[in-house]
């Protein structure tokens, strides 16, 4: 009877400990001014993506070609000017946010789930399975990431879905590696042995004990990878292998405006800035998280 009460209070203790741990991490994150800046920036972009229809009219401004209004500089009517087809650049930048954030998040989710699964299995079971998985991933890693993504999109056809698949696949080895490393560092600790000793099944151990304790580096990595995924999306669209026109995407806007940079440099300035700021904000958050989660810096 008394043992049950003790076990309960241990669980309670664990829950309160976890709660105060996350509160502690949030507090430390807030301490970094740059991380807070990053959070504000990305929140702004998220807002732009979600509330796009409230800010600009898709059909009327982002897509509608109006040859008479082409190549106009920034003005009160067109904040960022108009592009070579007379479309409002500001509206296109706003809607482009949707594409970038969406593709970035989805592709990283793909990479995280598949790569994470492979890494967890490799790290947990070790031995031949580990060897096999790592060798296959080494093959993927031998090709520079962008080039692999380019090849995949080039073969499967250039559209948003294939873009997400391509960027996702090229990021799988990275996630596999980091999850594997985290799992390796946790699995030899004693509480894992204890779980095994009471007969817990493997997949339960992995999901309930190993993964939650190795979350920190994975979260940091994932944040930084969303940043590179957004970069990759823009890069692929720039060379024509991403989202196809007329859909507004920051990279393809740069490609389109390239011929006019002599006199209308704003065509490439604003979409480019959008890329820089989005990627920067994610990098700031990622860095801040890394410092907040580092026990050595307490």
């Amino acid at each position, binding site marked *: 009877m008394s043992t049950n009460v003790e076990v309960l209070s241990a669980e309670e203790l664990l829950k309160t400990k976890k709660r105060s741990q996350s509160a502690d991490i949030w507090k430390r994150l807030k301490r970094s001014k740059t991380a807070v800046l990053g959070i504000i920036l990305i929140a702004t972009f998220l807002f732009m993506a979600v509330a796009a229809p409230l800010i600009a009219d898709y059909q009327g401004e982002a897509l509608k070609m109006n040859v008479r209004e082409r190549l106009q500089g920034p003005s009160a009517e067109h904040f960022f000017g108009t592009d070579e087809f007379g479309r409002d650049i500001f509206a296109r930048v706003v809607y482009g946010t949707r594409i970038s954030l969406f593709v970035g998040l989805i592709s990283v989710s793909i990479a995280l789930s598949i790569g994470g699964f492979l890494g967890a299995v490799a790290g947990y079971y070790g031995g031949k399975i580990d060897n096999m998985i790592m060798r296959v991933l*080494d093959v993927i890693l*031998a090709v520079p990431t962008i*080039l692999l993504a380019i090849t995949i999109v080039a073969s499967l056809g250039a559209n948003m879905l294939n873009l997400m698949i391509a960027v996702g696949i090229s990021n799988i080895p990275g996630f596999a590696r980091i999850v594997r490393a985290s799992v390796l560092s946790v699995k030899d600790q004693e509480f894992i042995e204890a779980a095994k000793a009471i007969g817990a099944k493997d997949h339960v151990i992995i999901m309930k004990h190993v993964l939650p304790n190795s979350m920190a580096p994975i979260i940091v990595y994932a944040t930084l990878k969303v940043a590179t995924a957004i970069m990759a999306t823009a890069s692929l669209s720039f060379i*024509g292998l991403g989202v196809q026109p007329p859909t507004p995407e920051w*990279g393809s806007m740069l490609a389109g405006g390239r011929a006019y940079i002599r006199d209308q440099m704003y065509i490439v300035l604003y979409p*480019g800035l959008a890329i820089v700021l989005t*990627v920067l904000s994610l990098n700031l958050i990622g860095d801040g998280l890394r410092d907040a989660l580092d026990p050595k810096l307490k």
Partner: protein
Amino acid sequence: MSKYILRRLLMMIPVLLGVTFLVFFIISLTPGDVASMILGNGATQESIIALREEMGLNDPTIVQYGSYMKDLLTGDMGNSYSTGKAVSGEIAQRFPNTLKLTVSAIILSVLISIPIGVISATRQYSLFDNIGMIVALVGISMPSFWVGLILIIAFSLNLGWFPSGGMEGIMSLILPAFTLAIASTASITRTTRSSMLEVVRQDYINTAKAKGVSRSVVIRKHALKNALIPAITVIGLEFGVLLGGAVLTETVFSWPGIGRLMVESIQRKDTPMILGCIIVFAIAFSLVNLLIDILYSFIDPRIKANYK
């Protein structure tokens, strides 16, 4: 030592085999008919069928892969679908240009980033450090093709100091090399800095100070040597990123390298050329990583010992 190098070279082979298979397989998924594309619109049904037979396009993918590999072993990468000329010749002509660009970029990066990283670490939290780190963060956030365009606008179109494209003389190398170098400089600087910060906290640094070693010697001889170890790994990784980035930079600056060749080949659906380019990229990347590992073992005696 040479045994180690030999062993690593041998280990490269299955990886490269894997790469060729992977890429071949991916490209084979391309929809559309190659033969009719080559022959163009006016081609007759029979000529298309004949060409397909001749090119072995009716065989299963594995067989096509096998015959490709057989040719590859003799250095034959097939012929371009668009020009009909040998792929290997085209690549051999353009690859040195890419090499020129990427090597210049990485040398530039290393020369700038390591001193800045060291200084930032030794003057942690100073103005230099804070500004430096913000600049570095912005540096890795800027897409290379955008940087290239901005640099062209500023230094080529407005100031007229450099040409805006092509490969003529050293002036045309500067802007593209700088463009490529920006992201890798930022990355290597950050790694050097964080690695130095780690090292400076180590006990053996205190031991050195307790011996009476002067501060500059502690940094140079004791700290830097250890801090370079992870930095070198990043340099190797960054080279891979550079190879990828070369594709974009070469496009922006119309630089005649294999990056631009690959993009053109994709637009022309020139499969053998695409394959050839990727394989060369993969080999180059693997060789660089091998070089890095060898360099590693020279600096870190613990690793050297493992491979005596």
